[in-house]
């Protein structure tokens, strides 16, 4: 992996590993992953349960708590390894340089505080100022995330607003610290399709306006395809493929990515045939196969695949962790 270059990248992760307790010791839920988030770009992190994508996000925010631990890794932001900072030194980063929004806006907001108070609180934590000044900024922020009549809405309580509105408020709060990196962890999963489109468009627009870099974590392949520039495919704690969105969705290299895309059920499918599903289920952290994690479920697996761990390496214009990637590219039909 190339060394971290903070002129090009908002975030650089190197050899991050996160472990969880299991019967007879600890196991890696995130296994030695490395990637760069270029400035101004959006990376879609795609994976199923047990892929480690959410833990990765928490690790980036340094929100990993006992009994889960970060075993190793460096995370570079603005030239510094934030993992080496003390808790106190890191405080201004969380919400300041790097912000996160989650799946359920209702639980992200304090139900007994007005939304205005929550935004103001967040603004004042990162840039000390008077309440009145913060209130003005808060109204602007609410307006910029598309909330109608922000001067009135600022005094509403969370229960008075719909899911889509709340998620916008959450985005406004997340961005109130002038973050450079935004992590959206399944941020639209709980929303209806039409609301989801609006919220994702909002994130898109805001990111472009502010030069924000986004890590879009989702299990929804469609969301990743339409709203990300690069795609990171995670499986069982490892990155199995990393490439530009055009490439991943038209000429994916890793067998898992291709199988995942084949198993997606959307309305373009041929209804007369069974959906091409992947046999078995994603392994739990304490049940990881040796060698290539996907080998037991892979149509192209050979005995050599279980002997050692394939590393993420370049195959054409993509990065994939597969021993047979080159010959598979040669053989596959173009989508």
């Amino acid at each position, binding site marked *: 992996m190339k060394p971290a270059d903070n002129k090009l990248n908002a975030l650089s992760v190197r050899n991050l590993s996160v472990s969880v307790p299991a019967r007879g010791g600890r196991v890696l839920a995130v296994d030695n992953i490395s990637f760069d988030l270029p400035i101004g770009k959006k990376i879609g992190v795609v994976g*199923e*349960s047990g892929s480690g994508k959410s833990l990765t996000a928490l690790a980036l925010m340094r929100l990993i708590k006992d009994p889960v631990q970060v075993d190793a890794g460096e995370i570079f932001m603005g030239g510094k390894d934030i993992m080496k900072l003390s808790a106190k030194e890191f405080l201004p980063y969380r919400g300041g340089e790097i912000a996160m929004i989650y799946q359920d806006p209702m639980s992200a907001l304090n139900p007994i505080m007005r939304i205005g108070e929550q935004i103001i609180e967040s603004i004042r934590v990162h840039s000390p100022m008077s309440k009145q000044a913060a209130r003005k900024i808060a109204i602007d922020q609410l307006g910029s995330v*598309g909330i*109608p009549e922000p001067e009135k809405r600022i005094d509403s309580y969370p229960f008075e607003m719909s*899911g889509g509105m709340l998620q916008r408020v959450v985005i406004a709060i997340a961005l109130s610290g002038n973050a450079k990196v935004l992590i959206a962890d399944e941020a639209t999963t709980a929303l*209806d*399709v*039409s*609301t*989801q*489109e*609006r919220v*994702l*468009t*909002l994130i*898109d627009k805001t990111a472009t306006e502010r030069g924000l870099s986004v890590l879009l974590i989702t*299990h*929804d*392949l*469609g*969301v*990743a*395809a*339409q*709203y990300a520039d690069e795609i990171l495919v995670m499986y069982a704690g490892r990155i199995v493929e990393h490439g530009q*969105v*055009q490439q991943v*969705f*038209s000429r994916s290299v890793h067998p898992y990515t291709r*199988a*995942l*895309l084949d*198993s*997606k*059920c*959307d*309305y*373009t*499918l041929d*209804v007369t045939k*069974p*959906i*091409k*599903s*992947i*046999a078995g*289920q*994603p392994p*739990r952290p304490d049940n990881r196969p040796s060698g290539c994690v996907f080998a037991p479920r892979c149509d192209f697996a050979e005995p050599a695949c279980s002997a050692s761990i394939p590393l993420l390496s370049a195959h054409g214009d993509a990065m994939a962790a597969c021993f047979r990637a080159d010959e598979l590219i040669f053989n596959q039909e173009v989508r």
Partner: protein
Amino acid sequence: MSTTSVVASLNNVTRTFVSKRGDVKALDEVSISLQQGKTLALVGESGSGKTTAARILLGLDQPDSGSVNILGSELGGLKHEQMRLLRKSIQVVQQDPYSQLNRRHCVERIIEGPLLAFNVGDKISRRDKVISLLKAVGLEEEHLRRRPHELSGGQCQRVAIARALALDPKIVVLDEAVSALDVSVRAQVLNLLRELRDELGLTYLFITHDLGVAHYLADEIAVMFRGRIVEQGDRKDVFIDSKHPYTVDLLKSVPLAVPPDEKRQNNMDVQTLPSPNPTDACTYRSRCTVGRDLAQCASDKLTFTKGSPTHLWMCHFPVGGK
């Protein structure tokens, strides 16, 4: 009409939930009919009334007006015991794989549950039935002694399906049954549901917010919005010849897992007008790009327009003209 018979129906059902913060009309004169061996998908977002419709069909809730009919019996007039017996014919699989199974019971006991409820057979014949159901959903005998928390989401959902089939029902209501599953597992379970339906001649009522899933499994799709069916038809009607602006909006909003076009059409950030009080006129008006400012949409009563034997919609200004 086709020669297949109607096995269950909701007829002009209205259900209003009364609360201190105002009444919510979950269903507004909704009629649904399920035909033997066919799958009807109710598609809609939260608040559309699809879950309420399912619950009413299952007899878990009563309509305020209108009637519910299962295999010829009107649910309203039934006594407790009669309703209970009718339950043998209509079962449910819910969304959350874990919470729909009793965490204190093992898989065998869970699947045996419905058989015990009706004192079917003896211990040995029940065990045989449980094992055959287990195999039918793709699980093994080793799973019998496991508890739900020891299984994966997909496995739990299979157990739930096995349980639903224990009494050999005619109708299965699937309430977001695959929504909580991983993509690859979802595909497996959808395949399973399809196989079982074809093999056993089941009738499905599939509740979902996912158009892709509805498209794959359903013969007929009803799109619901705020308590009303706004469009209904077969796959071609709804996905290709869509008439209602809401259906069109939904289809456009679904992100597909394909390389993005150069110019992505972003839906204009349409501000939602405050929702009008329930009236006979259109409830979609506040979000509709077509009718939001049109007087007719605000005032005129809506009725169904029938475009073809299969295709219905409820709109003054349908897409593509009347």
